[in-house]
């Protein structure tokens, strides 16, 4: 039997809850968008229910631990097609098991979730590293990125602690939303359609007058610390994959 949900995390958890309520074992759970229709099957469309969602998480915490709850949420942010099934499978296994299964690396589902979580961790770490702020005239430190996974919700803590006294905005141009910190708290924001195009490359008029200087200084610094005798492009590319280059000012062509 197939259950569909609205592509949110709470939606997925609600669908998992429904499988238990209707006593369906080994159901298929897919996001509504991915449901392609079938002649022989009418899916059960699950409405998101926050209470149901939190009951599933409480169950996971009881059977396993807080760590497991965090693991599942982080994996969901990967947006990988297999992830709803993996999360559902983990919940089923956790409910059946008498002991915490979070560290059972011999189990395929558990191991796969850990591997996805590792990728999420790597992407979060990359964002901590590769976000490049540009100072605008209205004193906002502004950055555009395009992470492989939907990791923006995992970023505020790090940047709030680091930059509590400056306003900053990190915008995901692929998923079209951002996080904005106003020196008090961080909120999710979206922009009107016609603003979006301008966001990728800020024009000189909106930038602080000193901003270009610091970008040039940074690029000069980056070029000067290289040791040509030790050139190792393979290692370089491994650490800074090409898809991130467009957001790294030091990797742009020299124009000065």
């Amino acid at each position, binding site marked *: 039997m197939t259950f569909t949900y609205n592509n949110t995390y709470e939606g997925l958890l609600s669908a998992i809850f429904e499988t238990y309520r209707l006593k369906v074992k080994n159901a298929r759970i897919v996001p509504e968008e991915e449901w392609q229709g079938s002649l022989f099957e009418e899916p059960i469309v699950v409405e998101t229910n926050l209470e149901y969602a939190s009951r599933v998480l409480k169950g996971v915490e009881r059977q396993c631990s807080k760590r497991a709850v965090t693991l599942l949420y982080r994996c969901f942010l990967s947006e990988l097609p297999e992830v709803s099934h993996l999360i559902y499978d983990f919940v089923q296994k956790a409910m059946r098991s008498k002991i915490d*299964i979070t*560290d*059972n*690396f*011999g*189990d*395929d589902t558990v*191991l796969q979730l850990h591997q996805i979580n590792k990728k999420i961790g790597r992407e979060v*770490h990359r964002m*901590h*590293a*590769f*976000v*490049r*702020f*540009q*100072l605008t005239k209205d004193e906002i*430190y502004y*950055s555009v990125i395009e992470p492989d996974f939907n990791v923006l919700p995992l970023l505020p803590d790090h940047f709030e*602690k*680091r*930059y*509590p*006294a*400056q306003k900053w905005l990190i915008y995901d141009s692929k998923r079209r939303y951002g996080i904005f910190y106003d020196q008090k708290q961080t909120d999710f924001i979206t922009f009107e359609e016609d603003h979006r195009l301008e966001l990728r490359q800020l024009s000189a008029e909106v930038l602080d007058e*000193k901003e*270009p*200087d*610091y970008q*040039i*200084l*940074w690029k*000069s*610094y*980056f*070029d*000067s*610390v*290289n*040791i*040509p*005798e*030790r*050139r*190792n*492009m*393979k*290692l*370089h590319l*491994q*650490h*800074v994959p090409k898809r991130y280059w467009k957001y*790294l000012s*030091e*990797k742009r062509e020299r124009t000065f």
Partner: protein
Amino acid sequence: MNYKIRQKLEILADAAKYDVSCASSGSNRKNTKDGLGNSTGMGICHTYTEDGRCVSLLKILLTNYCIFDCAYCVSRKSNDVKRAAFTVKEVVDLTINFYRRNYIEGLFLSSGIFKNADYTMERLVRIAKELRTEHKFNGYIHLKAIPGASDELIHEAGLYADRLSVNLEIPSERSLKKVAPEKNYKDVYQPMNYLTSAIDGYKKEKKAIKSTPKFTPAGQSTQMVIGATPENDLHILNLANDLYKAQKLRRVYYSGYIPISEDNRLPALKQAPLIRENRLYQSDWLMRFYGFKVDEIVDTKHPDLDLEVDPKMAYALRNPHLFPVDINTAPYEMILRIPGIGVKSAKKIVAARRHGKLRKANLKKIGVVLKRAQYFLTCEDKEFKQVGFYPEAIRSLVVQGNSPKKAANQLRLFG
């Protein structure tokens, strides 16, 4: 745009780049509400140079004017290079503005010796002090402790910096005297010893009185140039081991000598000894994270590291009586000694085997490099490959697995 600043930055970053330390981890400085930055937990590499090294700090010299004439150093007095000097304000401004844009984790400030050691050290301290007090900067600061500087200045530096380092540069005093006539080990060890005892003192005090200020919370480190002078790996690793044990250093860096000069006091190398440098780092890791004793890695019979295989593999091949190890029953320490199994895999194995016996397929998924590990372990699979333990046969199998090109480029830690 101030062209002068750019020129200074290019000269003084270029002059600082041969110091290989780039760590920004291991400190515990939290930010304040109105402050800028923090340095807690793990470091962040904000970008990488084309030589594959991490860029995490603004690593510059305050000046490359120097009264010394050390053969291994680009900034030596007799070398014909462009010279420059930053003002205190310029360094502070660059640090703050780079940090606010998330370019860097902090500042790594070193300097040529102008006038004398104290005069130089005093200026380094002033910059750190201004960043911490006037700008409420809580990012990472790494300062050089200048050999020969007074204890008072070194002490003040420790109050503002996260890490201090004083470089041995050359792994024996005899060689040092030959290439750096103005230097001696006494001047190097004096600030190092002072820091060792001061860090220890502050730690003890902190336990008793919570409000004790931080003192060099990320500890101290040092660097040795490898391949410029004749010391063997036995000598170098024993020296490193002493530094970890007696001086409680956090890190020892090894810098493969890059022939930067035509100074006839030094050998004319065609290429930097990069593989040897890598093997030294691997050995360093074995001592710090894998529970190896230094004499298990090198001894008088094997005074130099094997360039063909990594030091853990070399150890296993020299000690066939310890293998194969049963992955399902052996203690963690022994699993850690299997070539191809790192700290993370070893921990996962120990956690996972509580849920059931592990097979080869499990090991592969956990991240064990079976290409190397397979000869040294047994697991639940009965048909598991056991060719018998013939070190020479295993060696040739393992070495053949590395194509010659790959072997030459191999620079990762435990690839």
